[in-house]
């Protein structure tokens, strides 16, 4: 990206306890966390967050992620290193400057909501504006808009204690949004919620993000949440960032055993998309090709059907081997009559979880199309299954094709009669 990063973190350290500076020097020289007297919560963290990005910091408790996020708005002083918010340096800023950055540029959503119980929903949401000195009428109007945005319009005069957990956190999010800062820090924002509500809130956050385009730093210990929300993820362990990458990078190319162990538990079906696992569509013929070409392609690729595309690569449909065989036997030269509609073409960004039913119902590898309905790839069932397991994604096609010998015979003779081996015939297995 060419734009300036919204948030820049360079060699950030946080050590609690005596002799913190000395400890940082020793850590920088390669000492381990156990070698120094104090508690090293964050060690040498460096990353940049781009405008409009959701950057997730993921780690177990004690990995230093909460300390890290608190240094991003100065709630905790960094022991060493730099944090830049846009063009302003946060580390070492005077208290007044720090407050100005917090009011104008960085807001925060808390794990346990941290709403003020003596204020109504409206007054809670307007809190940031109030601190900024926005006139009452203006802040009431803007807070009202944001409350509507998060769907709590009818609760604006209620007290936080009258709301459920999910609703309270929506107030927390509304408060951060109303402050109208570019950057949103979310500290385990959904961890205190029930799984169902959490899922709902994640989706709502993504929806809001799609319209508002904030820069979000999201802390979580839940890998599924990280994978679902994050454009990029930083995995933290024992105070260090061990890997930064897209969810797919983390999942398919873990930097070390720790990350690999971690991602074992992830619900890959929700993280990976059709685009991530699809293979190049080789069993494709142009609609202008004849049945012989189609049959040859199927033979070469050992497939039982072939996708047919128009000249601009748009998916037209499929032709089955038996139909092609019949055409060749009849001596016809066009596929026209036997093209069937392609079953269930899926979009490249659909998560794998949505592909299972189409994959089961489709007798050929699932077609993946782009927005213009062009065929961009296929997903054989085996690929789909293999993608869910850790490790290799190498796959073959399981759909048992007509044996090449049979096809050769048909092609050679072009006679009216041909014998078929049924797909379920055990002899076919032996033939392979």
């Amino acid at each position: 990206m060419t734009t300036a990063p919204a948030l820049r973190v360079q060699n950030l350290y946080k050590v609690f306890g005596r002799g913190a500076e000395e400890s940082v020097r020793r850590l920088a020289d390669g000492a381990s966390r156990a070698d120094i007297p104090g508690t090293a919560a964050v060690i040498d963290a460096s990353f940049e967050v781009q405008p409009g990005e959701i950057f997730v910091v993921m780690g177990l408790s004690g990995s230093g992620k909460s300390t890290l996020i608190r240094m991003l708005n100065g709630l905790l002083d960094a022991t060493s290193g730099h944090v830049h918010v846009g063009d302003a340096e946060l580390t070492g800023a005077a208290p007044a400057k720090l407050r100005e950055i917090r009011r104008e540029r960085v807001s925060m959503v808390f794990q346990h909501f941290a709403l003020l119980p003596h204020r109504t929903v409206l007054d809670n949401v307007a809190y940031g504006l109030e601190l900024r000195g926005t006139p009452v009428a203006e802040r009431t109007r803007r807070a009202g808009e944001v409350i509507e945005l998060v769907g709590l319009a009818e609760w604006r005069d209620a007290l936080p204690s009258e709301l459920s957990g999910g609703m309270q956190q929506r107030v927390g999010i509304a408060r951060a949004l109303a402050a109208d800062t570019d950057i949103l820090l979310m500290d385990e924002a959904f961890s205190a919620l029930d799984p169902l509500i959490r899922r709902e809130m994640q989706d709502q956050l993504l929806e809001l993000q799609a319209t508002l385009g904030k820069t979000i730093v999201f802390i979580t210990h839940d890998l599924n949440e990280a994978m679902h929300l994050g454009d990029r993820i930083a995995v933290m362990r024992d105070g260090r960032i061990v890997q930064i990458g897209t969810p797919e990078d983390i999942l398919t190319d873990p930097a070390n055993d720790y990350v690999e162990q971690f991602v074992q538990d992830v619900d890959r079906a929700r993280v990976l998309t059709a685009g991530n696992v699809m293979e190049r569509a080789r069993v494709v013929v142009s609609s202008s090709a004849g049945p012989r070409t189609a049959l040859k392609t199927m033979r070469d690729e050992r497939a039982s059907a072939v996708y047919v595309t128009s000249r601009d690569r748009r998916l037209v449909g499929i032709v089955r081997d038996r139909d092609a065989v019949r055409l060749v036997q009849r001596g016809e030269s066009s596929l026209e009559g036997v093209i069937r509609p392609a079953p269930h073409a899926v979009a490249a960004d659909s998560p794998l979880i949505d592909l299972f039913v189409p994959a089961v119902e489709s007798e050929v590898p699932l077609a993946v199309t782009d927005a213009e309905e062009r065929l961009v790839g296929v997903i054989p069932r085996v690929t789909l299954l293999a993608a869910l397991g850790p490790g290799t994604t190498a796959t073959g096609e399981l759909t048992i094709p007509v044996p090449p010998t049979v096809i050769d015979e048909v092609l050679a003779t072009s006679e009216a009669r041909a014998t078929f081996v049924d797909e379920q015939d055990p002899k076919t297995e032996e033939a392979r």
Partner: protein
Amino acid sequence: MDWFRIPVGDWVADGFDWVKDNLGGLLDGIDVGLETLVDGLTDALTAVPVLVLVVLFALIGWFVRSWKLGVGTLLSMLFVVAMDMWVPALQTLSLVLIATVITIVIAVPLGVLAARSHVASAILRPVLDFMQTMPAFVYLIPTVIFFSIGVVPGVVSTIIFSLPPGVRLTELGIRGVDREKVEAGQAFGATPRQILFGIQLPLASRTIMSGINQVIMLALSMAVVAGIAGADGLGKIVVSAISTLQVGEGVEAGLSVVVLAIFLDRVTSALGSSTPSRGSLLSLLRRGDRGRAVARAA
């Protein structure tokens, strides 16, 4: 062991003499100020017709807690009137109220200071321990020296004696405010002052109110002791009843103290709870308010 005697008493007495000689003006100012306040309040209370005041107290009870407290207040206050203890009871009440207000004005800022600074907390703690464990009567001696006999030494000793729970519970309350909520204030750019008044004090108000409740209770117990120093009120009657062995008068004054104590305790503890008690006039009014707000929204 005569040679080992440490003359602490002499030193303290010398110190007091020095204060009396050098800070006389200040002491006189405090003397006059406090006396005016207490006498003024007593005069104001006694100027109100007895029944009006009794009903007013009953209404306060109903307002903050329940109609039952209202009725109880009405009956028990009439009981005090019937024992002919009404005026001394009002004198004691004035002393307690003035002492309490001054105590709160001193105690809450001290508590805030202690909550913010570990050093201040470490210094205050032993001082407060000292103030609370020193026998209450001992305070009367120096205060009588400074302010001579009358209501003022009573007020001053009462303030010293009842200060510690006010400071302690304020500190406790502020330290007990959820860290995340304070962080929320900081994260949105609030100044320390805005955090104190907008978040910490409101959220600590319950604990602070229970501290104030204790301050009042201690003040009342001390106000009786203050009778020894010559402060007018129920305490003085108890003291004279002791010296003349008049059982009846002592019991009557004692019962009046009990009535005052129960009234003040119930009212302040009701104020301290976060939500107004169900059945209080206050909660009825608030519910009506909210009902109207909801109706408007609909």
